[in-house]
Each structure stands twice: as structure tokens, then as C-alpha cells.
């Protein structure tokens, strides 16, 4: 869902650009970073592992 949120932020920024001046600050870049790490986490997490301790190595 975080990636959808990112797209929403970008779309809003472009919409708001017609009304006011928008500048990109560090927060957006940090959000990019968060998204990247978050996607990595999701990619490598396997919920079944919770029930199979012996399989985790």
C-alpha cells in the first residue's frame, strides 16, 4: 500500500502545483528510502516461518 501512497503524493503535488508553489524537501526522499526498505522487508518475509522454527536457517 505504501507505493500507492507514494503515487498519491506525487499526483497531489502535481495537482497542487497549479495552485501554489511546491518544492521537494528531504522528507520525500526519505519516503522513497522507506518504501524501498519496506518493499525489501515484505519481499523477504515469509509468514509461514513463524510456525516452523526448525526450517529457519
Amino acid at each position, binding site marked *: 500500500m505504501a507505493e*500507492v501512497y507514494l503515487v498519491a503524493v506525487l499526483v497531489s503535488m502535481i495537482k497542487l502545483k497549479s495552485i*501554489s508553489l511546491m518544492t521537494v524537501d528531504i522528507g520525500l526522499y526519505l519516503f522513497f528510502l522507506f518504501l524501498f526498505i519496506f518493499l525489501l522487508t515484505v519481499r523477504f518475509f515469509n509468514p509461514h516461518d513463524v510456525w516452523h522454527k526448525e526450517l529457519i536457517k
Partner: protein
Amino acid sequence: MRTKENNQIFCDVCATLQSTRKKCKICGNRIYARKPYSLLKTLLYTLSAFIMLIPANLLDMMSSIKLTVEYPQTILGGIMWFYEEGDYFLAFIVFFASIFIPIFKILALIWLLIMAKIGKNRFSYFSTKLYKIIEFIGKYSMLDIFVVTIMTGFMQFGNLIHIEAGGAVIPFALVIIFTMLATQNFDTKLLWDEK
């Protein structure tokens, strides 16, 4: 997984085979061979989503109020705005997320319901793929809701300019929720059951 015959059920949570029919011995998850009333629930949720789709598209998604004058915008109006501004790419993204996905999901669910009723046939493989797709793309239709949330949060400058969420937000959110529930309640195993 053909488990119906030998009375063993696969638990989705802990990925083990269980002989019981009520609760998984390992993780306590409720287990069943097929999701109960899967087709009926899916049908009803799909129907509700379809009903909600109408006000979602006809009412205003968002209105900007500049110097006390209101400028409402429907979903399609927002897309047209991008298109007129020359932002074809964004127009496409928003169109895809807000109009194409919900309609596509509803149509796909109807197809899946028919296929599940028929049982295993030559489309079963295709239908399973289709289910995977609508399950994945569903979240992208939340885009417009997020946009409205962000915009209303940003633009609150009193009488000079402020943005309000319109009447379409709730029906649109309901469309997404209903299609998600419908997808969740659909059991792909039904596509492979022989009748």
C-alpha cells in the same frame, strides 16, 4: 491440492496438513476445505460494489473553494483536468487506478463467479491467473482516496483557498472495500472442483 477425498485439509497459515475440520492443531486457525458460502458472499459484495460505483462516479470527489467560490471535480473531471493540462501520463495513471481497475475488478469477479459455478473447465487456469491479478491491482484504486486526503490536508487557507472532500469519497472507498472483500471471500479452489 486434492485433499477433499482423503479428509486432510491444508492450513493456509502454518502450511501444514491437518486431519481436523474445525481448527488447526498447530496455529489455531479456522480451517475448511472450501471457504464457506464463498460464491454467495462474493456475489453480494460484487453487487454492492457495482451499486456504489454509480454515485462514486457521478458525485464530486473533491471541491476546491477559492475565495468562497466552490469548484467541484468528479473523478472523471480530475482525469480530464490532467488531460487538458497536457499531463497525459498522470491522466492515464489516475484513469487506470480510479476507473479502469474498479470496473475491471467487478467484471472479473462476475466472470470468476460463473467459472466457479461451472467448475473445472478449459478456462480454469486463465481464471486463476485473473484472480491473482485482481487481488494484486486492487490496492491501486486507493490512489484517488489518498490524493483527496493529502490535498485536503495541504490546502486549508480559510477563505483564500481550501479543499474539501466531496460526496464521492465514501461511495468510492466503499467500492474498493467491497471489491476487496469479494476477492477475499472468493475461493480459487472452486475453479478446479469437478462438478
